[in-house]
C-alpha cells in the first residue's frame, strides 16, 4: 500500500485503495484521537466527535466497513512506522473519472416486495439514504451501490482536475479540509463533504468554520442525493452547530423568514432552479457571486435579507459574506413594506433570525437551528 503511494511520490491523491485489509486500516490510526471540546455525535457518519471515531464492519462480509473507510480517512492516514502521512484518496477507490453516474442514486422509496420483507429506508454514513433491514444494517445490494456512490464522488473531483495535493508544510487537519472540500464539487453530493468538513472543524473547536460548512451542507431537495435527511438524522449535531450558528450569526445579516422553499419562482432570473443547482453553478464557475445579488434593508444596524434563497445559494456555495453582491434597498417603500409584513407573518422581530428551514424535502428536515 505504502509503496503504491510512494510510487506517486507521496504527493498526489491518486485514488489508491485506502485500506486493503483491516491491519492497515488501523495502522497508525489508533494512536491519534481527535480531541474535541464539543459533545457532538454525528450518527449517520458513525463518528463520535467528542471522543474516538467509531468503527464497524459491513454486515455482509468481513471487509472493512464503509464507516471504517470514512472514519479512517477522517482519522488520518498516519503511518506510525515511517511517521509520515500516507497520501490517499479519501474514499480509497480506484481512479475512474465520475463513474456510475446513473447507478449510484440513493433510494427514495421501497418496492412492495421490500416493504413486505420488512426493509426500510435508513441513513447511510454520508447522510444519504439506503435500504436497511430490521437491524438497521444495509442490505448487500445497497453496500454495492454505496460504494458506487463513493467512487462517483471521488471520480468527479478528479475529473474536474481537483486533485488533492498533499502539502507537507501544512497540518494534517489543513490537508484534510482541503481534500474534503474537493468532494463538495460533485453534483448532488456536496452536502456530504460539507457536512464531513463541518464535523472536522467541530472536532477542532472551530465553530465558525464548522458553521459555514454546515450551512453549506444545508440539504436541498432537487439534489439527486437525498441529502435533505442529513440534518434530520444528524440532529445530534445541532448542539455543536448551534454554537457554530452563533458564530455565523456574528454577521449582521439576518433572515426575515423561518422557512424557504428550495425552488426559485418562475418570475425571477433563476426561474425554477433550486438552491442546490445554483450553488453548484457557483462552485463550478458557471455563475459568479455577482450574478446572485442579495437585497437587504437595514434596521437598527441589522441587515435584513430580502432574497432569502439567493443568500442560501451563496452560503451553500461557501461564498463568504464579504464577497456577496449586497444591494441596499433601505428606504424603498415596497421592500420596506414587504419585509415588515414578512417578519410579522413569521412572528419575527426586527432582529430577524439566524435559523431557517429549507422546505420541499419533507417536514423537519433541512433545519439549521
Amino acid at each position, binding site marked *: 500500500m505504502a509503496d503504491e503511494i510512494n510510487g506517486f511520490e507521496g504527493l498526489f491523491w491518486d485514488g489508491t485503495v485506502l485500506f486493503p485489509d483491516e491491519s492497515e486500516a488501523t495502522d497508525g490510526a489508533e494512536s491519534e484521537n481527535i480531541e474535541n471540546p464539543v459533545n457532538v455525535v454525528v450518527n449517520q457518519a458513525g463518528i463520535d466527535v467528542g471522543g474516538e471515531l467509531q468503527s464497524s464492519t459491513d454486515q455482509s462480509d468481513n471487509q472493512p466497513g464503509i464507516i471504517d473507510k470514512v472514519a479512517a480517512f477522517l482519522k488520518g492516514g498516519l503511518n506510525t512506522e515511517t511517521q509520515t502521512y500516507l497520501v490517499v484518496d479519501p474514499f480509497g477507490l480506484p481512479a475512474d473519472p465520475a463513474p456510475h453516474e446513473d447507478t449510484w442514486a440513493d433510494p427514495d422509496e421501497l418496492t412492495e416486495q421490500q416493504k413486505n420483507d420488512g426493509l426500510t429506508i435508513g441513513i447511510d454514513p454520508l447522510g444519504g439514504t439506503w435500504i436497511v433491514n430490521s437491524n438497521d444494517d444495509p442490505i448487500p445490494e445497497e453496500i454495492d451501490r454505496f460504494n458506487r456512490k463513493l467512487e462517483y464522488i471521488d471520480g468527479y473531483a478528479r475529473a474536474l482536475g481537483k486533485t488533492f495535493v498533499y502539502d507537507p508544510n501544512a497540518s494534517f487537519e489543513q490537508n484534510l479540509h482541503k481534500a474534503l472540500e474537493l468532494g463538495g464539487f460533485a453534483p448532488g453530493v456536496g452536502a456530504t463533504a460539507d457536512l464531513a468538513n463541518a464535523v472536522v472543524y467541530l472536532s477542532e473547536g472551530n465553530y465558525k468554520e464548522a458553521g459555514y460548512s454546515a450551512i453549506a451542507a444545508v440539504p436541498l431537495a432537487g439534489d439527486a442525493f437525498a441529502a435533505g435527511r442529513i440534518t434530520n438524522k444528524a440532529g445530534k449535531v445541532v448542539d455543536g452547530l448551534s454554537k457554530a450558528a452563533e458564530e455565523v450569526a456574528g454577521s449582521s445579516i439576518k433572515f426575515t423568514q423561518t422557512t424557504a422553499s428550495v425552488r426559485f419562482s418562475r*418570475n425571477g432570473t433563476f426561474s425554477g432552479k433550486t438552491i442546490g443547482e445554483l450553488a453548484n453553478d457557483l462552485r463550478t464557475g458557471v455563475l459568479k457571486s455577482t450574478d446572485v445579488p442579495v437585497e437587504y434593508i437595514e434596521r437598527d444596524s441589522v441587515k435584513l435579507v430580502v432574497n432569502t434563497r439567493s443568500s442560501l445559494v451563496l452560503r451553500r456555495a461557501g461564498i463568504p459574506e464579504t464577497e456577496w453582491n449586497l444591494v441596499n434597498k433601505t428606504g424603498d417603500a415596497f421592500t420596506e413594506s414587504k419585509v415588515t*409584513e414578512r417578519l410579522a407573518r413569521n412572528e419575527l422581530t426586527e432582529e430577524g433570525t439566524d435559523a431557517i428551514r429549507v422546505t420541499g424535502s419533507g*417536514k423537519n428536515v433541512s433545519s439549521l437551528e
Partner: protein
Amino acid sequence: MQVEKVYIIKELAQDFVKDPQIKTTDNNAMLIYEYEGESGDTETKGITFNDVLASKHTTEMGMEVYMVKAYNAVSVVENSQWSKEFGESITEQGYKHFIVYFDDFGAYEFLAKTFEKPE
C-alpha cells in the same frame, strides 16, 4: 386605496413548492397553491372566487406598494381604480376587488362577488 385583510391564509407562500395557479370554471376562479404539509408531503389547497368578472396576476416587479398589505391574505381593496374601469355600478351589483399577495409570486386579483376559504 385601502386594503383590508378579510382572511389570513394559513399556508405561507415561502413554503409553496411551485407558483400558484388560477383555474377558471364557469363563472368561478380558483387560486390554487401547493405547499409542504405537516407530513412533509405536498398538499394542495384552493381559494374559490365566485361570479368572477375579471382576474389578473401581477409579478412582484410590477406591484404597487399598497398591494403588499394583502400579504398572504385574501384582502379587499376599497375605492379600487380597477373596479371602476368596469363601471361605477358594479359595486352596487355586489362585486368586490379581492387581492392576494403571495410573497415572491406576486399579486393575484379578482373582481368577484364572494370567495370561499380553502377546505
